[in-house]
């Protein structure tokens, strides 16, 4: 797989992001924080996340449920209610800053410049409107065309995402589609305005393996056609491996590790990434042991553990001399284009990876 290294990580310490003016990258997220005040306390779903993404390239964001992946993607689209979410930091999309922009401005970009494929197409499509109508609606809100033209476009889009007899199925309701077809229709809707940024939130989770592959192929083909930038959100490393250029591993609302796919799979430098790899079923390799799930549960986002957020679950926590429980590790570029936030020394990590982790995978 030919990989371009166009997504690039920027320094994620707070002071660097603000006030540096318009970036050159197509999408640049700087020190994004998304917090939700609740009755139980402040939920810090995303707490200082930064990354860059160029056109035509793909970034995979992985992490467990609750790590802040989806919140990030919704934040980029500006879909958080400003009434109950505190969003800070900067999101630059093609020279426009979105966090400070008016709701209407962001709205006009949504669907046209950036769009999103949602996880569960059945619940994500309106049950009372036909698939065609929903695509037509998406198209017409950004393009001043007649219903007929929009309908043709919708049929066209359905055809392009591989739905047979699109001229008939355009009048069907979502519940009349199969799961895979529904996801295709969802993609057709997301792509109906040729978005330059496409965010796919677990696009294949609910689908069986064959359909999954078809959908991923479809996304890849469409990316090539439109030269879009893609953010692929998933907890499935396999999907990332197949589609992404770079991987951003999120833990407790922060970036744990950032690397090229190559590095992430072969030279991961964060115990959490090791855990993710260990819990991933692999078909391409005979497994010597059983899957190794990460022990413990994801942390509370209200009371994030002191120090390294991963410390309660980290098997190597003791090796840091107590630093893990007191001091938050910084995200440091340990190799060119490869960053990780861990108190363990680089050598120690390489040693553990080579001697303990890799053989078990």
């Amino acid at each position, binding site marked *: 797989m030919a990989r371009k290294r166009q997504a690039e990580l920027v320094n994620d310490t707070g002071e660097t992001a603000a006030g540096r003016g318009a970036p050159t990258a197509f999408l640049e997220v700087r020190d994004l924080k*998304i917090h*939700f*005040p*609740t*009755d*139980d306390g402040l*939920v810090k*779903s995303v707490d200082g996340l930064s990354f860059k993404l160029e056109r035509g390239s793909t970034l995979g964001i992985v992490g467990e*449920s*609750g*790590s*802040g992946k*989806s*919140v990030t993607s*919704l934040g980029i689209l500006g*879909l*958080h*209610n400003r*009434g*109950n*979410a505190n969003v800070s930091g900067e999101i630059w999309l093609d020279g426009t800053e979105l966090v400070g922009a008016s709701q209407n401005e962001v709205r006009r970009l949504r669907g046209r410049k950036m769009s999103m494929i949602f996880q569960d197409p059945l619940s994500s499509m309106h049950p009372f409107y036909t698939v065609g109508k929903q695509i037509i609606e998406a198209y017409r809100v950004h393009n001043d065309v007649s219903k007929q033209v929009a309908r043709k476009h919708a049929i066209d889009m359905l055809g392009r995402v591989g739905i047979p007899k699109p001229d008939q199925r355009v009048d069907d309701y979502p519940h009349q589609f199969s799961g895979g077809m529904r996801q295709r229709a969802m993609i057709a809707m997301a792509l109906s305005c040729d978005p330059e940024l496409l965010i796919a939130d677990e696009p294949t989770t609910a689908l069986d393996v064959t359909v999954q592959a078809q959908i991923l192929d479809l996304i890849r083909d469409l990316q090539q056609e439109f030269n879009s930038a893609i953010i692929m959100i998933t907890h499935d490393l396999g999907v990332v491996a197949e589609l992404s250029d770079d991987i951003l591993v999120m833990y407790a*609302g922060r970036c744990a590790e950032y690397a090229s796919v190559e590095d992430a799979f072969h030279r991961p430098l964060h115990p959490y990434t090791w855990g993710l790899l260990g819990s991933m079923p692999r078909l391409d390799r005979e497994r010597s042991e059983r899957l190794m799930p990460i022990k413990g*549960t*994801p*942390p*509370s*986002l*209200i*009371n994030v553990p002191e120090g390294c957020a991963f410390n309660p679950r980290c098997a190597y926590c003791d090796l840091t001399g107590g630093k893990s429980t007191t001091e938050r590790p910084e995200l440091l570029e340990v190799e060119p284009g490869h960053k990780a936030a861990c108190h363990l020394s680089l050598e120690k990590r390489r040693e553990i990876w080579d001697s303990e982790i890799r053989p078990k995978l």
Partner: protein
Amino acid sequence: MTAPIEVSGAEGEAQPEAVLAGVDRKAIQGRSLGQIAWMRLKRDKVAISGGIVVLFLIVLSLPGVTGLVVGWLGSPPNEFHQNLVDATLGGPTKPWGGMSGDHIFGVEPINGRDLFSRVLYGARVSLLIGVLATLVSVVIGTVMGITAGYFGGWVDTLIARTMDVFLAFPLVLFAISLVGVIPPGLWGLEGNNLRIAILVFIIGFFNWPYIGRIIRGQTLSLREREFVDAARSMGARNSYILFKEILPNLVAPILVYSTLLIPTNILFEAALSFLGVGINPPDPSWGGMLSQATELYSVAPHFVIVPGLAIFVTVLAFNLLGDGLRDALDPRAR
């Protein structure tokens, strides 16, 4: 077995999935559903004030207490004070319905009975019937709901149809005609005890489908839960699953909807009394007073206001408490 309760904080357009894990696990551990609910409820000042009023009313209605309070602030409920009432017009001679230190809510038209004590004694009847009828509804509704939801198939169909029939009955009409034809003595009861029993039975018996539907729905979803599957795969008997696995998980909805059904039933009782099928005189009931007031509002408007407000405050208090309980026990329903 933990209750299938999902704790969620922020709600909004984009529900952050993170929030589902948003409560400190350590804090949760060792806390029962009841404790969590109580924590939430405590923060809900409106619900708490509703609860306090309810508690207050219940305490006031306790047999010993009512008499004590009446002895202190009013006069016996059946004592006439006709010197306070205009013989011809029937209304109190003094302004403001005859309100005074002796009769803080004024006096009834025609016979001058102390309105405060009558409203207080009326609370007793209302609460008693409201609560007992709810009990009847809840028992029938729960049994029927669980049976329908758990066993499914023709049992479910039969019970669901029965509920349809019940829901299609013109309740009020039915209740008044039924009360009208019931003999003066039945089940070894007579007088107002019989009246109360009949009202409890009718109100409770006809309202069970509302609870029944909710319980049925909950049971249907519980039946598919893993822990029930697990129990079943281990060979647990139906009765074990029903009582040990499903019923405990229905406690929350039962509690919430009982609390919300009580005010409905209190209103129902008041409506029946208003239509003339309430308890026998001279025992006071709020609906009965309003029924009398239809003839007397021109000479004694306070005779509308006082019992009407009593109904309003009671029902509102129960509603506030019920709403708060629902929020505390089942935040999704907010």
